[in-house]
């Protein structure tokens, strides 16, 4: 039968199918083909050129008649495009460019060797996985809707027919009655994939029962939800499946005419669907008397014109009629009165693509997948902060965590998962504590989101949730058709409030107003767009209320997004609010003294932080988008090392303030920082320290090889020079009480006692001799200069204290040191650099290992009995909870150190006070003032926040200093919080300098393992200058309108 001839019976259809298959087998073996993805995503990555390059390379080798190059629809992993499949051995290549085509032909097709550099790399290990079905991304998917995407050529009806195409239509027309079709759909349990999940069979049944001579079958391809692109991929990759599904539906309801409404943003989808309709007509599979039966059905495409509301069914019909796309109230429902007043059914592209498979394989087969109430599979479009962005199809009921981590490979750039936005502007955000939610209609509704069309945008900590809510409201506000007041005016009011909050002008009552307005709009808006418009706001308030409060109360956007509150993201992420681009650019101009003063304006511990800061700034640095973040800590270290003349910060002397009596308990970073900022306001606070040396954790637990003691002493002396008196050897609860201090006339007291008590696990043997906790161990060594250390040490834990303890024991002569941790290496809270250094020094890490018992024989430790763990479901922190695995083993040991956390030891502190400012393991404070429940008592640092870091403690001390000043004077005098003007030069038009990031030099292993000399060395000046010039100056030209509180 000649190509393009009409097919006028089922018999002919089967004959054509056989013939096409035969032809493909005789001439070109279909297994000998190279499939190049020509979906929209890969085309944007240049796949059309790649396809041409393959054709050219084959021709050069004279293989063009043996091996075919087939352009196919979307294969899924768009972010890795252009992607290519070698069909004969199922090898998947990613990121293929035109030059690679020749290599693949020569090495793989001819030479039979896989080109490893272009294969998929396994997460974590980096191991190459060449065969498509071995790749986790594909292995875990079940493809029904996307069954042909990536397999067939979307512009060839022959290809579709050869893959069982139009068999379902043939079966329907010859052996099923319309009622049989609806019955089969009912059995399948298919629900509308456009978002609301209305049972498809029911819609069809209503329309079937509506009496009318004319009915319409409509397809909604107006995929307007930002973040969703499954309809696009189906229309571009397998358009015939939609046509076939529509024809079956039309037969069931009795329609002879159909329309596919496709948005104008998808020109390629329109083009390919147009070709498919034309081909189907030519082949007699559309139009009159299809397959020789009395059934006639034809299709037309209507293009959208950029109106989101046209995705709503009544608005879409108005648009097809050539009117403004405004929705109308229902009832009457479209099944009764739809397009041009006739009964009509509107289904989504994905819904229709399911239909042929259901008819072919039966409703029961379809219903065997999914959950009780939601059957089959669902296509999700993964986008945003996720490694494997692209299109995936999974059984309904797969969990969000599986989708993001197992299929999506998790979050790129070592960032953390924050939330997944699902359902577009009608949906909501799901936070990390709900990663175990199953993706079905009901479960998502419960969490305040919706399944929607399946767009899933993953967000990391760089997204500000208030800004995200504002973004969606802005979208809805722009797209609101204006017909009903709740949507037109209500969303506008909500947007105004959100904009105000983002600008730092929010009011306390704003959150409640938003909730109230949101609920009203939900109840009263005319159509789906309006009724669901408040969802993104309500769901972010539900899960991220603290972020709203931070914007309103503290005028701070930690994500570094909201203009007016943010000059550069690095600065916003710094707990102490240091002007990072400011000091970095001053260093670049060799103005070290000014740079140092600018840093000390917000943080007294420049030298210390240059060594031990955990640099949230670098994690937020935008330069990472280009290559790697700016080496902020290294630059800071270099800058601090240039200090010859002490750079004192600006101090406002004040005779009245100097007379007020303020006590600070604890000379750790929080207490000293509080004293420092009070001193800058002219106060003369007195600091009481329990140990013999001031510095807190900075001298007690952080080892000297990371932070030399003279550095700490020097920066503390600067604070003393500013009029702060430190008295050591005075312990609260032993040497004095809060009541004593009050009696001595102290008007305000700051508690900065930290969380200095180590925690031990409650397992057999944990109190045996030879078992210590890391805090005690480090403290004993650092304060007394010696501590007993075994030969074989096991450290239990994964935080910085664990790594510090392990590295200390090796320096003190331990022969074998093992760190056991119950989660994975990636989940370890310790700094990555520290872990790497520890590994270099010979320390063994055993992740996914949990200790069961410390084996004690004759009062001596002989080992730690452990069992291995495997990763289970997600816990509230968004990490996978370790679960017991069967294997148990013993790690030999004669010394065990617990590093499983630390806590505030409150029992002694306030034992003789009547006051009990304690709540659980920390002291509750107001986040903007540091005030406790007792008016004159303030607190900050680890005692208030739990174990954190030096820079957090600095921030806590500063907040309390401002709070104390306000308590004493009734006013805020924190002059250092005003934005500092930095007059460094910046050429807006210059391209960024190309220097790569360089890590700080370190001393060789052999010269550090047996001593406590500082491991890291400072940059040499030329390197420091180059590193500083890498800054992109995100702060340039930005003015902060609201001072951070």
């Amino acid at each position: 039968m000649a190509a393009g001839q009409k097919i006028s019976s089922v018999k002919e259809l089967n004959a054509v199918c056989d013939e096409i298959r035969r032809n493909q087998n005789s001439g070109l073996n279909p297994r000998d083909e190279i499939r190049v993805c020509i979906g929209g995503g890969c085309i944007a990555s240049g796949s059309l050129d790649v396809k041409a390059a393959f054709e050219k390379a084959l021709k050069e080798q004279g293989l063009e008649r043996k091996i075919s190059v087939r352009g196919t629809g979307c294969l899924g992993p768009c972010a890795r495009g252009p992607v290519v499949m070698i069909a004969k051995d199922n090898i998947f290549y990613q990121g293929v460019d035109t030059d690679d085509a020749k290599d693949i032909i020569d090495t793989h097709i001819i030479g039979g060797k896989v080109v490893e550099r272009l294969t998929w790399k396994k997460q974590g290990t980096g191991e190459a996985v060449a065969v498509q079905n071995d790749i986790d991304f594909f292995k875990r998917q079940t493809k029904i809707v996307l069954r042909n995407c990536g397999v067939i050529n979307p512009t060839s009806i022959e290809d579709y027919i050869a893959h069982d195409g139009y068999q379902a239509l043939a079966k329907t027309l010859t052996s099923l009655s319309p009622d049989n079709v609806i019955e089969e759909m009912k059995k399948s349990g298919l629900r509308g994939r456009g978002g609301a999940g209305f049972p498809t069979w029911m819609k069809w049944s209503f329309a079937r029962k509506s009496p009318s001579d004319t009915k319409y079958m409509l397809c909604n391809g107006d995929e307007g939800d930002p973040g969703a692109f499954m309809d696009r991929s189906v229309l571009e990759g397998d358009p015939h499946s939609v046509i076939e599904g529509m024809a079956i539906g039309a037969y069931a309801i009795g329609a002879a005419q159909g329309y596919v409404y496709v948005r104008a943003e998808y020109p390629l989808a329109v083009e390919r669907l147009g070709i498919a309709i034309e081909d189907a007509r030519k082949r007699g599979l559309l139009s009159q008397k299809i397959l020789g039966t009395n059934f006639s059905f034809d299709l037309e495409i209507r293009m959208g014109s950029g109106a989101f509301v046209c995705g709503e069914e009544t608005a879409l019909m108005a648009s097809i009629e050539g009117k403004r796309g405004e929705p109308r109230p229902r009832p009457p429902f479209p099944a009764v009165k739809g397009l041009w007043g006739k009964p009509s059914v509107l289904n989504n592209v994905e819904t229709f693509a399911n239909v042929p498979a259901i008819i072919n394989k039966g409703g029961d087969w379809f219903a065997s997948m999914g959950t009780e109430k939601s059957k089959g599979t669902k296509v999700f479009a993964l986008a945003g902060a996720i490694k494997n962005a692209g299109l995936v199809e999974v059984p309904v009921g797969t969990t969000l965590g599986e989708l993001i981590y197992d299929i999506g490979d998790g979050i790129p750039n070592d960032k953390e998962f924050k939330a997944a936005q699902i359902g577009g502007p009608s949906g909501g955000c799901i936070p990390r504590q709900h990663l175990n939610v199953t993706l079905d209609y009901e479960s998502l509704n419960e969490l305040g989101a919706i399944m929607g069309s399946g767009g899933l945008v993953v967000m990391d900590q760089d997204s500000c949730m208030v800004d995200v809510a504002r973004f969606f409201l802005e979208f809805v506000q722009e797209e609101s058709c204006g017909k009903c007041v709740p949507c037109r005016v209500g969303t506008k009011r909500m947007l105004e409030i959100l904009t105000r909050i983002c600008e730092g002008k929010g009011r306390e009552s704003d959150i409640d107003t938003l909730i109230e307005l949101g609920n009203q709009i939900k109840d009263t808006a005319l159509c789906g767009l309006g009724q669901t418009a408040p969802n993104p706001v309500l769901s972010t308030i539900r899960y991220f209320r603290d972020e709203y409060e931070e914007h309103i109360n503290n005028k701070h956007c930690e994500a570094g997004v909201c203009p007016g509150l943010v000059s550069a993201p690095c600065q916003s992420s710094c707990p102490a609010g240091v002007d990072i681009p400011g000091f970095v650019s001053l260093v670049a101009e060799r103005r070290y003294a000014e740079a140092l003063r600018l840093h000390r304006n917000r943080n007294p511990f420049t030298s210390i932080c240059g060594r031990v800061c955990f640099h949230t700034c670098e994690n937020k640095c935008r330069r990472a988008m280009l290559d790697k973040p700016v080496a902020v800590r290294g630059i800071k270290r270099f800058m601090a090392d240039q200090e010859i003349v002490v750079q004192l910060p600006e101090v406002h002397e004040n005779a009245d303030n100097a007379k007020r009596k303020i006590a600070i308990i604890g000379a750790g970073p929080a207490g000293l920082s509080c004293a420092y900022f009070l001193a800058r306001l002219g106060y003369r606070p007195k600091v009481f320290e329990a140990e013999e040396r001031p510095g807190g954790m900075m001298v007690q637990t952080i080892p000297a090889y990371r932070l030399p003691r003279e550095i700490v002493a020097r920066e503390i002396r600067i604070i003393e020079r500013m009029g702060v008196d430190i008295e050591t050897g005075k312990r609260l609860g032993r040497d004095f009480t809060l009541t004593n201090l009050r009696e001595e006339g102290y008007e305000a007291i700051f508690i900065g006692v930290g969380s200095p008590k180590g925690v031990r696990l409650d397992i057999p043997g944990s109190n045996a001799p030879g078992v210590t906790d890391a805090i005690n161990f480090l403290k004993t060594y650092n304060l007394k200069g010696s501590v007993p250390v075994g030969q074989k040490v096991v450290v239990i834990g994964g935080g910085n204290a664990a790594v510090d303890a392990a590295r200390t024991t090796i320096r003190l002569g331990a022969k074998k040191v093992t760190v056991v941790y119950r989660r994975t290496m990636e989940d370890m809270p310790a700094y990555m650099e520290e872990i790497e250094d520890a590994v270099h020094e010979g320390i063994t890490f055993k992740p996914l290992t949990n200790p069961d018992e410390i084996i004690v024989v004759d009062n001596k430790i002989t080992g730690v009995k452990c069992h291995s763990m495997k990763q289970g479901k997600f816990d509230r922190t968004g990490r996978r909870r370790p679960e017991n695995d069967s294997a148990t083993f013993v790690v030999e040991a004669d010394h065990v150190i617990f590093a499983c956390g630390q806590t505030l030891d409150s029992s002694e502190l306030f034992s003789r006070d009547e006051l009990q400012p304690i709540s659980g393991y920390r002291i509750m404070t107001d986040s903007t003032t540091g005030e406790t429940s007792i008016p004159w008592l303030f607190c900050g640092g680890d005692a208030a926040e739990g174990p954190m870091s030096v820079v957090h403690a600095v921030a806590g001390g500063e907040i309390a200093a401002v709070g104390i000043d306000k308590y004493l004077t009734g006013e805020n005098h924190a002059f250092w919080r005003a934005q500092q003007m930095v007059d460094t030069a910046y050429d807006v038009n210059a391209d960024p300098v190309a220097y790569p990031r360089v890590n700080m030099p370190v001393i060789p292993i052999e010269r550090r393992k047996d001593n406590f000399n500082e491991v890291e060395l400072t940059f040499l000046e030329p390197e420091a200058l180059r590193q500083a010039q890498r800054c992109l100056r995100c702060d340039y030209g930005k003015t902060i309108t609201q001072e951070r509180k």
Partner: protein
Amino acid sequence: MSDVRCNCQGEISEEDMLKQIDGILDDYKGTSGALIPVLQIAQKMFGYLPEAVLKRISVVLNKPYSEVAGVVSFYSFFSTVPRGKYLVRVCLGTACYVRGGKDVLDSLKKHLKIDVGQTTEDKLFSLDVGRCFGACGLAPVIMINDDVHQRVKTVKISELLDTYRNKKDETSKEAN
């Protein structure tokens, strides 16, 4: 500079426009719901929808001008003012937004020295925002006419615009 340059290239007289649109209207007379497809074709032909064309459409399709104008103003794709040779549309869909689409827009505004909805003085570029082009896996993206540019970096914007500027130079050289 710009007043010296000939802008007539590509601009056609009203008479020709009406002739062309009449040809289209002939095909669509009698089709139900023809208004929007006709407007889409007209916009594609002329780059925008001149008033004279809209009036002709209203007469031939026998629809009040108010209805035609109402439809034109409702849909964001229709424009009643001429656009530049290259329409730069920045995607501000969710995925692009969280991947820095807003920064890309700011950078484009800065480089082109125009705001959203405006056209550069040399009539080369118009700037617009879009809501999702369905290339979310490659965010942030922008579309320049029908080309999708993926993973756009703010620091590389000027380079990208230059490739289009140079295209223009080549054509004008050919014309000379």
